[in-house]
């Protein structure tokens, strides 16, 4: 705490001295531009961390099962609604409410897997994609029927507070969700590397045909990874809730973004997807600053296509696409 304060004051002093009346005009402008650049980077990383959680969820599903899961955004939306209901009826802060929402999504994802995905796991990729599309449609329209199409918002105190570090500022709620998202990235990595289930997951991701010969219960592990993937989507939804708003179609854009992240990072790589999320957040923020926000999404896709063209295995990928 003290060190942070100390660091704060050093930074402030540094910048104050530079931007003070002693500095010449171009120097001041240059510094202002630098501050702006760094601030945009910081904002991009804060948003990118949330994207990372969404991307990791999809990386689990995609990496382990090679399913193009078009319902991923819909699960995010379900998680958001779950967190919203907890907030609206039980007054539970979304930054706590995301936990029960995540657990609910885990169970829900497992059930969906067992009932709808497992029976068709031997069928062609086409059919699996179709199935997830159908599920996505059902979830979205059901949400509209239950909650109506109205936009909803949560207003918690934290969203109106800022923290400052020298000339840089950040929204307190965003910092909190960054911290939580980071915790998940680290936690998930540890889970995948250290735990038996995690190792089973990686084994299946590398070679789904040989893995059962090693004694891995394919169906159960796949079910868990699907459930975990949807739980992560739901958690990301809960974390997004205070800074965005809620309506039945909110997940649609995030499905495509999640795929971009997974490909950027490299299939089968969860850290890669997380990295992809940060890259996306950063690129969107910087594009918005220098070119204008309307180009931000296009740049996402252009980046995506560039990576696909020159390094199809993704930045961290080990396998051929």
């Amino acid at each position: 705490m003290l060190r942070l304060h100390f660091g704060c004051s050093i930074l402030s002093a540094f910048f104050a001295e530079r931007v003070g009346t002693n500095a010449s005009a171009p120097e001041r402008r240059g510094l202002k531009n630098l501050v702006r650049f760094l601030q945009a980077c910081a904002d991009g990383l804060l948003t990118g961390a949330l994207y990372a959680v969404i991307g990791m969820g999809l990386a689990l599903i995609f990496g382990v099962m090679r399913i193009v899961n078009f319902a991923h955004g819909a699960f995010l939306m379900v998680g958001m609604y779950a967190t919203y209901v907890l907030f609206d009826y039980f007054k539970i802060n979304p930054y706590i409410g995301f936990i029960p929402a995540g657990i609910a999504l885990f169970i829900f994802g497992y059930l969906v897997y067992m009932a709808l995905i497992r029976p068709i796991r031997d069928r062609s990729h086409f059919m699996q994609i179709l199935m997830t599309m159908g599920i996505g449609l059902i979830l979205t329209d059901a949400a509209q029927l239950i909650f109506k199409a109205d936009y909803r918002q949560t207003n918690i105190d934290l969203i109106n507070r800022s923290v400052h570090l020298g000339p840089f500022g950040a929204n307190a709620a965003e910092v909190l969700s960054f911290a939580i998202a980071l915790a998940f990235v680290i936690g998930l990595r540890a889970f995948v590397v250290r735990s038996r289930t995690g190792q089973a997951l990686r084994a299946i991701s590398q070679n789904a045909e040989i893995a059962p010969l090693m004694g891995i219960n394919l169906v159960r592990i796949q079910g868990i990874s699907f459930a975990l993937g949807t739980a992560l989507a739901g958690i990301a939804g809960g974390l997004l809730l205070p800074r965005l708003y809620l309506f039945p179609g909110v997940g649609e854009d995030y499905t495509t973004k999640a795929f971009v992240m997974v490909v950027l990072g490299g299939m089968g790589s969860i850290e890669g997807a997380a990295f992809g999320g940060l890259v996306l957040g950063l690129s969107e923020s910087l594009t918005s600053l220098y070119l204008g926000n309307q180009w931000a999404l296009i740049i996402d896709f252009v980046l995506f296509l560039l990576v696909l063209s020159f390094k199809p295995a993704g930045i961290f990928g080990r396998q051929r696409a």
Partner: protein
Amino acid sequence: MSLFKSWKFWVGLIVVLLWTRMPWFIHNNYQLQVLFRITLFAALGLSWNLVGGYAGQLSLGHVAFFGVGAYGLAIFTELGVPVWIAAFLAAIVSTAVAALIGAISFRLRGPYFALATIAFAEVLRLAATNLNVTGGAIGLTMPGLFIGRTFWRSFYLAAVALAVISFLTNYWASRSRFGYYLMAIREDEDTAAAVGINTARCKLYALLISAFLTALAGALYGSAFQFIVPDSILTIDISIQIAIITMLGGAGTLLGPIVGAVLLLTASEAFKNVFQESHLLIYGILIVVVVLFMPEGIVGGLQHRFRKRIKPPKDVKPQPVLDGAAQ
């Protein structure tokens, strides 16, 4: 030609003739519009079938060609080109776009290919939303390929013509060497390449043909409804709709896309009228049910059933595979 001896040909001809006469059987424009939509999507499904069905490449970005066709028609007409030439020019531009998309995307397999196609289509949609030449989000008024009191009937007949052309393309593909190469690529691309098939070129040709036909469909559609915005003519929903129709109907079959279009679009419109807000929910349930119970699509599933009932000819005795094999 043995073609004329085939009963299937005559049945097909009669069906096409009946299909063409439909406007005279129905009485109002609404039903004609629904039929137009069904026929056009049958054409779209058949075009997609070349890439997604025969070649087995799951393209989820076909709306890119659809949209280029529509916007191309509007922009070229704006530049003074006569309206029908503009439509074909737009289709040619769309083919060029397909060449670019193919060059990058066909290096990828399976789901990656699908994602790349999605990305391309989204880039086009976002570009159309932001650029002035495409009218931005405000949209563009489309020139009329057909005008006059019975223009819906003319559009409908044009859609039938496009569907027939797409069908014939499929038919030719299913019988020709090119078509066999595509199917070989679908079954096992590496082996096909090892056998000497130029997989990249085959896939590209399939995509080019598909893109041309899809673009014409886009020009027709945009012109019929007279006004386009990026969110209606370049939306991923259309790509998904085309893929769903073909996959549920039976990808890689001749009749699959047609059956899929007829059933799914009729269902979709009927659901909208009967269920109002919950129509998407019912539609989603329909998709889930068909995927669960009809894995090869409707036509595929039916073919499977019929094939099982085919008995071997009577005069063939079972022979032992190897001399001296026991039993």
